[in-house]
């Protein structure tokens, strides 16, 4: 009969009306500033810079490679390289950003900067209460405002941060092992070179038959001659060889 549905509907809304006073579970909303829903772990808003240790300026992972600045679609990142260098997490001296600004009024939260960063230096923050009365200065974050500790990163994205830490530890171990083998090789090469130098006067007259050995002794000698360089090189290649596709996961 016509009108029956209306009465059913009225009963339903009346039940809601009365029920919302009685049972708290009915209320679908929370009173925001006092009460907050936990953010999902994958939530993100604007990027921040990760630093290790206590001092944000010393521990900044960023090496001012400017990849994020170039990749940023809305061009909201501005980086100035430093003139001097400071040691990074493996102890290698690196340049650092003298200036690192992100204009969050331009940023579109696409996370591309995080995905391209080879140093795990830039990550997405979950902070969203960023309103300010200063339209230009207040929304332009400098590196001090952007720097957040690794512990903070663990707090907001625990799973991701643990993965990143494991990766960095692995890299560090690899770099150390490499440095160790390099120094060992260097020592060995030096020893070989010394031995060769000692043996050279006696062995040189041997002629054609000595070619394989001379070729073999030649390589370490070359390596020994270039000794300062290999130490600098291995630090970078492992990073470029481990692509950062995990950043988006």
């Amino acid at each position, binding site marked *: *009969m*016509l009108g029956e*549905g*209306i009465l059913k*509907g*009225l009963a*339903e*809304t*009346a039940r*809601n*009306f009365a*029920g*919302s*006073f009685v049972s708290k579970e*009915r*209320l*679908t*909303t929370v*009173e925001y500033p006092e009460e907050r829903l936990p953010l999902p772990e994958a939530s993100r808003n604007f990027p921040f810079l990760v630093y290790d240790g206590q001092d944000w300026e010393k521990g900044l992972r960023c090496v001012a490679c400017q990849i994020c600045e170039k990749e940023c679609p809305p061009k909201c990142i501005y980086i100035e390289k430093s003139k001097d260098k400071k040691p990074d997490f493996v102890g290698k001296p690196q340049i650092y950003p003298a200036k690192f600004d992100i204009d969050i009024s331009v940023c579109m939260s696409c996370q591309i900067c995080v995905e391209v960063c080879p140093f795990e230096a830039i990550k997405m923050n979950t902070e969203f209460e960023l309103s300010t009365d200063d339209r230009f200065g207040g929304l332009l974050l400098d590196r001090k405002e952007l720097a957040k500790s690794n512990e903070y990163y663990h707090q907001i994205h625990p799973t991701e941060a643990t993965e990143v830490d494991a990766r960095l530890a692995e890299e560090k171990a690899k770099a150390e092992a490499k440095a160790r083998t390099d120094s060992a090789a260097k020592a060995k090469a030096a020893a070989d070179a010394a031995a060769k130098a000692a043996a050279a006067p006696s062995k040189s007259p041997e002629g054609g038959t000595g070619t394989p050995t001379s070729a073999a002794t030649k390589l370490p000698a070359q390596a020994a001659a270039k000794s300062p360089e290999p130490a600098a090189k291995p630090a970078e290649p492992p990073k470029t060889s481990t692509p950062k596709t995990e950043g988006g996961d």
Partner: protein
Amino acid sequence: MVSTLDQIFVLLKHWIVAHMPAALQSVVGVLLSVVCIIAVFPALFAISVLLERKGLGRMQNRLGPNRVGPFGILQPVADGIKSLTKEDIVPVGADRVVHFLAPVSMVAVVFMGYAVLPMGRNMTLVHMDAALLFYFAMGASTELSVFMAGWSSRNKYSLLGAMRAVAQMISYEVPLLLSSVGVVMATGSLSLDKIVEVQNQYSFGLPHWFIFTPWGLASFVLFAIAATAETNRSPFDLPEGESELVAGYFTEYSGFKFAEFFLAEYVGMLSVSGLGATLFLGGWSAPFSFLQFIPSWIWFFSKVMLSICVLIWLRGTLPRLRQDQLMNFAWKFVIPFTLLNLVDVAVWRFMGEGWARWIVCSAIVVIAYVVMVRAGMRRKNIAPRTYRYAE
């Protein structure tokens, strides 16, 4: 029976008027009443807006506004300050004079209706013999304001919104009038004072309200439907249609002019609730004879606020109609039903006192309802919506 508390406003007015020079007495008396109406109903408007926002919130399992003042009771004050301080924008192509006059005339006309409403014993501003006629004449004038607003904005969507609003208001004006005519037939008077007097009688402790007669109940329901549509309230709020049109005919209004339309809507709602209470719910008379010691104006205003609560409840429940459903419902169901109901009133009137007329009139109403619904369902005029989804 007529206590001092019941007549307190009347006595107060007489006391103030008595202190005035003789030449000014009649003018001051009228002005006092006018000022009271203009002060009281916007205050009720604020209360009903708050009730609506809190009530709708609760119906949707939300808390509603609770930030301004304790439990959010100062929300209407904040809203008022906001709309007063907002920029008033008039479109470049608009007809400035008409654009300004539309909201003003709308509010003015809506307040005119209160002139004839009896808000308590001896509390009618103008004792008019053709009060009901005056009320409907004023109510119909809001259509002019709506069209002025839509036309002067020089915006084709505003104009379309105004056309829709006017079409709806004219369609529902007819059943609104026809359902009230029943009361006029039963009492033999157009005077609202007289209509209340007729209902202010008691037998076995129960009042002679028209809603307690078979034809009166049907008339009241039809009146409520038509009044809801006439004041553009949900589920008939197509002219405003917050979720799909941007306020229809008053799209181009901002600031306090927008607030004036809002005010006119609510004051109109209060006024039509007052009329409904006067016609069918016995106006200022008490629902039981032993409750007559409570002042009459308390009864009138509680009836009005109760109607407002029901309107809010309906708004929280019903989805909006489509334009063709709205028109079909008015012309193919409500109007024929009101016409049949007039026959019912005539039968009631000429069958005289006795139990027979109760049975006959109830039968007429029930049969009319069943037959019309069956016919309507068959022709799909008022049937529930059917949907065909894409495969």
